């Protein structure tokens, strides 16, 4: 119950209808993508187009997955996103903890960094990063791409984790230290379990940021480490305009993360709102 909730039943009914209309419009694009992915390739580009397939088939899925480079790209996407999540958490957790627990003035630098890195055009960091990765000898590897993706998510992760640490009462730690735990021990065994929900949220965000990222992947990979967004984008040139297979691959790529995040919905709202408001 909140202050804005209406009490009149008629108003509620009108709003429900209005909402249903908006949701149908909002849901249509992806629903149409799914429906198209089950059409035969020729029907996918038929004039005039149909909404519901005349013939249902998995042809587009087999075609998409058997195309050269598609399965390796899916594997690369998972690898890169997992690596980036790990790097991001390992770096963000201690930093965020220090910012909230010890309130050092230097901690503000991270908040500033979070804002500024968001303003920097990706190309401005991406182009020099290519040279850095080449110099390090890790160009065109999932590891290099994971590092690049971490530059996007690390400031946000620190910001998010800090807001979760903020909610942990100091007493919990003090008690642990009384019992003889070291500072690291208190963080690792006492504080981290308390913020495990926050860890999950941060992990999902880092994962998603990497999973969906395009420009770094375009700049930093060529063959071996190419991720799926690049392959999806290449569908239009490399294989002609194979819309049917494109919709199938797009569905394969999107549905797992949609399902994952919808099931964890409640935990994620805090992350989606960037901790701006405690939802």
């Amino acid at each position: 119950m909140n202050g804005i909730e209406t009490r009149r039943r008629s108003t509620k009914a009108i709003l429900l209808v209005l909402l249903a209309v908006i949701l149908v419009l909002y849901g249509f694009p992806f629903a149409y993508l799914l429906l198209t992915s089950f059409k035969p390739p020729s029907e996918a580009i038929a004039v005039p187009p149909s909404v519901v397939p005349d013939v249902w088939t998995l042809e587009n899925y087999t075609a998409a997955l058997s195309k050269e480079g598609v399965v390796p790209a899916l594997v690369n996407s998972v690898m890169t996103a997992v690596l980036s999540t790990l790097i991001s958490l390992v770096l963000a957790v201690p930093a965020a903890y220090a910012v909230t627990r010890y309130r050092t003035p230097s901690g503000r630098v991270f908040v500033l960094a979070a804002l500024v890195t968001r303003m920097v055009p990706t190309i401005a960091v991406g182009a020099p990063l290519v040279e850095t990765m080449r110099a390090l000898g890790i160009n065109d590897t999932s590891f290099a791409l994971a590092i690049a993706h971490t530059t996007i998510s690390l400031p946000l992760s620190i910001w998010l984790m800090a807001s979760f640490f903020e909610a942990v009462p100091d007493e919990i730690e003090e008690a642990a230290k009384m019992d003889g735990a070291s500072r690291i021990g208190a963080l690792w065994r006492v504080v981290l379990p308390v913020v495990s929900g926050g860890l999950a949220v941060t992990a999902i965000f880092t994962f998603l940021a990497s999973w969906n990222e395009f420009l770094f992947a375009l700049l930093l990979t060529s063959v071996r480490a190419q991720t799926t967004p690049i392959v999806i984008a290449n569908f239009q040139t490399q294989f002609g305009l194979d819309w049917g297979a494109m919709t199938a691959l797009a569905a394969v790529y999107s549905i797992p993360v949609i399902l994952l995040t919808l099931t964890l919905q409640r935990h994620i709202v805090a992350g989606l709102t960037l901790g701006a408001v405690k939802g």
Partner: protein
Amino acid sequence: MRVTDRRFALLLMAPAALFLAAFVLWPLVRFVSNAFYDISPIAGGPRTPVGLQNFIDAFASASFQGASARTVVYTVVVVVLEFALGLAVALIFAALGRRSTVFRTIFMYPLMIAPVVAGLLWRFLLIDNFGIVNELLVRAGVLQSADQVGWLSDPAIALFAVALPDVWLTTSFITLVLFAGLQTIPGEILEAARIDGARFPTMLFRVILPLLRPVMAVALIVRGIDAARAFDIILIQTNGGPQESTTTLSLLIYRTMTRYGDIGLASAMGTIYLIGMLLVASVAVAAIWRPGEAR
């Protein structure tokens, strides 16, 4: 004890700080410094210092001016549409109370979709001949024939059409942030306004929106910044065409760097863009966020 605590804190922050210094700050410094050189696109080629020449060239170039204007138009269109729609939906959710839970879940789904996928999907929806949008408009009697509106091929409207997937993709973000903000408004304040006989529009503009100000600031600033640097979602739909009509700054910088190989000029453009963003964002933060006001 104090000193060791401080050292301990610095030790905990050091890895993240070093990482950001090495992989964000250092590349950025290199990028900005490149703006003062004429750089051969061949690896290991000569670098000639040229002072401010790249900046002069950037400001003088018609494509840079055009792209800057288009970036502003694109950002304003995206943010205004998203904000209007996002606020409306957030208010409906709030008015429905607990009954909105399922709808809120459904409404969130585009946030998980990759911008590349969203761009391609909308291109597919908006294609002149076999796009479903024009087909449905014809069936509804709005259009006479499916090729009457070339959403992405008519330079006059392409910039607005490429903005649609961005609106579709991220309106949910605004809704979520505003909805969460609406939850924090104390019921008594609204009740008091209601007892005073305030009608809904008065309540919205006099009570609700002023209370939402800090939350609105976060939503608008974050989305404004993101829309201004939109890249893949536009690239995939039109590649900047037709006739440059959808070439925003991020596309122009990318093209100047990769296709024309003019790293110096691209860096100058990027530097101007970055300074512009910092200025606009600082003004926005000062004007609507007003940090220091009670949150």
